[in-house]
């Protein structure tokens, strides 16, 4: 049985180095042997099931999409019922579909971190509001909404990043 000359313990066969001091050169003797536990092979873990991940499944995506399309349809119906013609309903429902298009971008990935999702959604809603604001040819109120949406999400993302990086 091998022993570690530094730690004074027997070291099980198959150990690449002494588990206590991490030295391979201190292992002496190679006769005999003791039953070695079969441990997992420890592959590099590419994607861990972290609690901070939103895992997007089909049902959630379908519900999300249905809500937006039902809203767009309802807007068109209200417009039609009011004066039997389509007037304002078309641009409003088109903008709802545009918002859906912006919000589903994060859904293209199967997993996303919570704070990334918040930041992405804030950016999408901000872009949508800027678009509406610029319809009359100038930016007026949308910089306020953009600041209110983006800044807290960005701060939250940075704080989470710092917390995630801290090892102690």
């Amino acid at each position, binding site marked *: *049985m091998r022993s570690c000359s530094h*730690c*004074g*313990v*027997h*070291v*099980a066969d*198959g*150990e*690449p*180095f*002494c*588990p*206590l*001091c*991490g030295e391979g050169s201190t292992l002496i003797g190679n006769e005999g042997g*003791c*039953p*070695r*536990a*079969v*441990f*997992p*092979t*420890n*592959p590099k*873990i590419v994607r*861990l*099931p*972290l*609690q*901070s*991940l939103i*895992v997007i499944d089909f049902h959630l995506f379908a519900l999300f999409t249905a809500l937006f399309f039902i809203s767009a349809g309802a807007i068109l119906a209200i417009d039609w019922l009011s004066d039997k013609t389509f007037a304002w309903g078309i641009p409003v429902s088109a903008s709802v579909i545009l918002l859906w298009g912006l919000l589903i971008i994060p859904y293209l990935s199967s997993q996303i971190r919570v704070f990334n999702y918040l930041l992405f959604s804030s950016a999408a809603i901000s872009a949508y509001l800027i678009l509406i604001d610029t319809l009359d040819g100038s930016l007026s109120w949308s910089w306020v909404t953009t600041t209110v949406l983006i800044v807290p999400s960005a701060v939250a993302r940075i704080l989470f990043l710092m917390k995630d990086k801290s*090892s*102690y």
Partner: protein
Amino acid sequence: MSRESLYWAKLDNAALIFPVIVSKWNSSFYRLSATLTEPIDPTRLQKALDTVMLRFPYYQVRLKQGAFWLFLEHSNRVPEVELDRYYPCLTIKTPKQKELLIRVLYLQNRISVELSHILCDGFGGILFIKNLLAEYFRLQGVSIPVSPDYGILDLGSLPQPEESIDAFHEIYDPKAPKDKQLPPAYRIQAKRCQPGVNRVITGIVDTQQLLSLTRSLKVTITEYITAVLLYELQHIQQSDDPALREKPLRINVPVNLRKFYNLYTMKNFSLYTVPEIDPSLGYYTFKETLHAVHHYLQKNTTEKYIKQQISRNVGGEIHPLIRSIPIPIKKAFLKSMHTKYGESQQTTCFSNLGTIAFPEQMNPFIERFTCYTTGAYHTKTMISALSFKDKFYITFDRIIDTPILERRFFAFLNKQGLSVTVESNNQQGDTL
């Protein structure tokens, strides 16, 4: 068991905290492994598991979030045996993902069962793996009799109602004074590994050799190991930041309450005692540490002391104000309470599962039995031990790179004349 109770169940009092503190660092899982003499047949293992799950339906559940509490919902999905590919005790995902809280894994000659503390403590886990092994051997053609003394149950019988009760509520005495909160303890300062990495070092000692040493000192094995851990933690603390050198050192030692109350529930029914030394009073020699631990455990491992802890824990759960708080706020509240009054009060945790014995028909097929836990975010190293056949296995599970405590602990045992064999889950290319 009634039909309703099969479909949903409340979390027991001790389990309430675990879903809240589950994170990428803290999985709440523990593992029990049995190494057999022959390679595992996964098909036979799955068949055995299917049968055993019928006798243990309260483990075939998933976590679900209600408006005020989390609860367990029966799942129609029987766990599938999986190849043991990753580090032990990986964390669970969010409650929304309907994951079972039990895993059965196999690798070469080894069967492992991983259970979340949300379901049960070590007692329930041991009983489950014993019955799984018994059924596995029966399918192999070995005759294994029902032997309640060894925990081998009649798998054709129905689960008894008392197996799924919350025993803490049964014995709760509202008049008992509540246990006091302790000041924060010292915690090992070290860099954590990547989340999910659980580094394991198992020390194997001859049980007779260890017993003769502890008998000569007139203490139990639990007392002796706890004292060695505290004594060596003291040295680690003294070489640490001066601001941390005055903090008390405490070890959380779980106590199985079933022997006190004669209630054999398969949910959690254990609490803990926390032997401590206070280095602000001066340096403790090993003899003084052993003396302190021995008397502390003798004095506090009693029904009366435990009653105070139950009074605090159950009293908090049934308080009308706490009950009326919606679950998202309650989770944040419980998490902060756990950080402040739970994990902060312990330096590490040492759980001795005692002697694991099987009926004589099963013994020739089982080579080895081991328990693994996982380090928590602040309590970076956890220790568990058990005795099987003539060997005593002491397992250190850590989420930090360097085996700071392990080095000192095994060096101490070595100096006492014990022959220790160490093994780890290190691979070629790993560094400490």
